[in-house]
């Protein structure tokens, strides 16, 4: 079936990502609060959320923010934390290739972990409406920017995401999506490798490295195991 790009797909993506918007709003507000503490103006904070749209790196930037701003360090740290998007975009190539350069690049601007995860699962299940990625991404984008502004305007009254276990929500999403990829005990090889490397990196290095190194190590382990399985086939 050919890949399409229609409003239906976008709406489907928006609806599927709705449960996560509450968490995104609260985390956006939390970023707003941190930006105020770091000394950014409301416009600067909103600009960051609107142009970067990457929570982990934005939080990290606020942690290392200082006067004067360590420009190069912040940019390099941002790249390190967000480098995992390189493989994420590559994985979605079957959806992105057929829809035209402009739609592909636009969809990629809006790509975050959660919308990517949902889109990958959707794509692997055989869905062909690639607008799903843009729809889910755009929804989170608007919520993230709104949350940032709301966090600034709330004067420090930001609800704690942990109170309603909303910090558990992204974990639950990725775990649930992970289960849909279960193909038998062999699946444990890449997953446990990834988890082990991520755990080690979490102890040893800063944000971003656990996901990047874990994902690469796990995927390598999976690819190597697959290759060896083919060679030993009679």
């Amino acid at each position, binding site marked *: 079936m050919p890949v399409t790009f229609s409003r239906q797909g976008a709406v489907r993506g928006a609806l599927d990502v709705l449960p996560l918007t509450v968490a995104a709003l609260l985390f956006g507000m939390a970023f707003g609060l941190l930006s105020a503490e770091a000394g950014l103006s409301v416009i600067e904070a909103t600009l960051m959320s609107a142009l970067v749209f990457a929570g982990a790196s934005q939080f990290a930037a606020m942690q290392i923010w200082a006067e004067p701003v360590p420009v190069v360090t912040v940019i390099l740290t941002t790249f390190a934390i967000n480098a995992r998007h390189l493989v994420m*975009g590559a994985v979605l190539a079957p959806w992105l290739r057929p829809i035209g350069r402009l739609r592909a690049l636009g969809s990629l601007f809006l790509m975050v972990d959660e919308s990517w995860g949902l889109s990958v699962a959707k794509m692997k299940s055989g869905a062909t409406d690639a607008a799903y990625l843009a729809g889910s991404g755009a929804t989170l984008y608007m919520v993230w920017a709104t949350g940032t502004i709301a966090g600034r305007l709330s004067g420090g009254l930001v609800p704690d995401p942990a109170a309603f276990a909303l910090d*558990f929500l992204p974990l639950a999403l990725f775990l649930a999506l992970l289960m849909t990829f279960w193909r038998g005990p062999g699946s444990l090889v890449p997953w446990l490798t990834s988890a082990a490397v991520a755990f080690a990196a979490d102890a040893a290095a800063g944000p971003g490295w656990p996901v990047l190194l874990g994902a690469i190590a*796990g995927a390598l382990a999976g690819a190597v195991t697959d290759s060896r399985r083919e060679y030993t086939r009679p």
Partner: protein
Amino acid sequence: MRLDPTIVLTILGMALVTYAARAGGFLIVQWLPIGPFARRFLDHIPGATFAALIAPAVFAGGPLEWTGVVITAAIARYAGNPLPAMLAGVAVVAIGRQLGAG
């Protein structure tokens, strides 16, 4: 309503490298042919990424979070879409925390 040039420069730099990562991977596989091993590697990226995303939090969690993990995984294994599993897991952890277990 301030817009400091250095801060704007930093934000633009952050945006540039972030978008380079978002678009770069796709553009690279467009332009470079990828062999069977690279294909298998990319095939495993989603699962490996999810595992890496949740691993540190799972290890750092306590018995309440682990209960949530087991419930989420069990429901997800047998349900069609992730939503019921997610909501069940969050509900368990939320209620547990309200009851003082977390």
